């Protein structure tokens, strides 16, 4: 199986460790992984800013760049939601449908497709799972608290085997962190209030680590945490799963 690794633009530029953790996990699972360097961005930020035609152009490009891989895997639920939910609607046609059908969020791929056994190295920490909205409400990788279509949460399933891990319970387990792409800068006050409420909830639950399958949520929460002197460790799930070897 040939996997094309999709590295979100914000991971590529701001958080390369996440890309390498994803790469390591896929290689360890025994698949042939390649990072096609022609990729740039899935276009969700442009779509969210009203740039439908620009997003279409990037979508068409992305379909071409990832042509030929058996699966396209990204350590980002929001990018995969873009590929799976929005590309068919933006582009129409068989190629977009075919890409959508073989695009996976990393944990979804490892757990649901490759069925790798969850790692068991030590991670004796209280962990808050941040349910990203794209993972939960677009890819349906979990149970939304408001009800609606649901599925298994591969993030929790993969983390569950780690030695000493403890999942904290939050008062609002799946409220949006407030990043929302362009929303974070168009409505910064509301965006920050939403993020701080997540951090407060996590702190009240005495979480040591905050994790998610969405790096954009985590970058926003980390930036808020730093400015507001919150000392929780914010890690992408790939980093936790890849363990101390990376």
């Amino acid at each position, binding site marked *: 199986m040939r996997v094309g690794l999709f590295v979100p633009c914000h991971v590529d*530029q701001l958080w390369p460790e996440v890309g390498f953790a994803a790469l390591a996990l896929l290689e360890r699972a025994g698949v042939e992984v390649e990072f096609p360097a*022609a990729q740039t961005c899935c276009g969700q930020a442009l779509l969210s800013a009203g740039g439908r035609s620009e997003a279409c152009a*990037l979508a068409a490009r992305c379909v071409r760049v990832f042509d030929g891989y058996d699966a396209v895997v990204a350590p980002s639920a929001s990018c995969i939601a873009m590929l799976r939910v929005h590309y068919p609607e933006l582009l129409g046609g068989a190629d977009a449908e075919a890409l959508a059908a073989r695009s996976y969020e990393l944990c979804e791929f490892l757990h649901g497709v490759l069925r790798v056994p969850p790692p068991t190295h030590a991670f004796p920490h209280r962990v808050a799972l941040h349910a990203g909205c794209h993972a939960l409400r677009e890819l349906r990788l979990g149970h939304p608290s*408001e009800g609606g279509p649901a599925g298994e949460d591969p993030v929790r399933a993969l983390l569950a085997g780690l030695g000493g891990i403890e999942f904290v319970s939050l008062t609002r387990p799946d409220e949006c962190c407030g990043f*929302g792409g362009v929303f974070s800068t168009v409505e910064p006050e509301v965006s920050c209030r939403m993020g701080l409420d997540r951090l407060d909830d996590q702190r009240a639950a005495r979480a040591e680590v905050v994790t998610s399958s969405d790096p954009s949520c985590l970058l926003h929460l980390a930036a808020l945490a730093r400015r507001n002197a919150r000392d929780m460790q914010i890690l992408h799930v790939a980093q936790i799963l890849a363990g101390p070897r990376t």
Partner: protein
Amino acid sequence: MSHALRAAEFLRDAERARWHDGSLWSLREKRDRAAAAVPDWESLREAAAALKRHVLAELPFYLTRFEERAQAHRAVVHWARDAAEHNQIVEGLLREAGARRVVKSKSMLTEECGLNPHLEARGIEIVDTDLGERIVQLRHERPSHIVMPAIHLRRQEIGALFHAELGTPEGESDPTALTLAARHDLRARFLGAQAGLTGVNFAIAETGGIVVCTNEGNADLGTVLPPLHIACMGIEKLIPRAADLPVFLRLLARSATGQAQTAYTSHFHGPRPGGALHIVLVDNGRSGLRARAEFAEALTCIRCGACMNTCPVFRRSGGHSYDAVIPGPIGSVLEPARAPSAHASLPYACSLCGSCRDVCPVRIDLPKQLLAWRAELSQGAPGGALRRAGLRVARFAFERPRVYALVGALARRVARVLPERWLAGRWNPWTRGRALPPTPPHSFRALYARRRR
């Protein structure tokens, strides 16, 4: 002023904002419990969505059938192209009946048409009898939520208002005492009213009847005491048959407040003995919206308000920050259709979390419609030229991996070199509440390429 600026204003009172968020969240939780108790909840949503979309597709047929059947029950049916026509018709009916004292139960449509100011300017007294509506009427402000109009107010504020307007003791803020005062005041108004106006929750095409749901019983008090009943409805409020009512009724109150049913679900077929019933069918932009494939779905809304209760942005900004008749997620889809430049900021008052789509009883894909508005409005909106230019530049860079990589590397270099106060100035909306993002020396692609060599 944009939603963003009003929201920032709202958040300055952190304690009040937290309280407002908490009030609405508890309504969301009540809705969750009520929905979980109905095993066929998702099937009901699907059925409601299918029924409403069917009616919307066949609207001319259902409207004329409704008119015919309502007339057979001796209701008088009027048609209004727009708000002005609606107001003229209502005014005309009141004048004809010699009615100068009117009571009104909740109708967002009359809010949309600006009926109250129209009548008041012409010497007709119109009193809102829904307690929340009455409170905001006395305060001369808009409702901040379509189901809980006064949810933005603390009891002390309502106490002060009632002290000034109803003569309650100064400092009295107990909700029961205040409600009792309103009960006495409104009881007198019901008894003295010469006409009663209501909205319509559902209009049944097959029977020609209208259904009004209240917890207070004010629609009933307002229509059994005076001889004239005027019911105002948007043309989209139709459902095909009486047998379809349970689908909607089982969803409505649970979605709105977590109750199984409102205290009163009143069905009107023609006037009461000795009275008259006039039904005003209002278009006011609905036919236009129906003709737009991307937004027509918004007309299936049954006005439950669940989207507002679940919306993390609404809860933290308050209904008034939308500066629209209907706020929240559904308002952000409906209002730009009415006034694109006035409401251009509303589709952006959303983090696209998708929770509204999950709670909507008629399965309106609100995030999809909000995104469609963003694309539409960026064509000609003010400030749109800059945004459009920015999007073109972004596209240019992202279509060329070497340009993108260079721009990325340059931006990170600049961020590492420049003093933070330059980068984190007032001009930078990111840094108003957050630290700058990390600036690693090398990108993933650079390191990957290096590794491969």
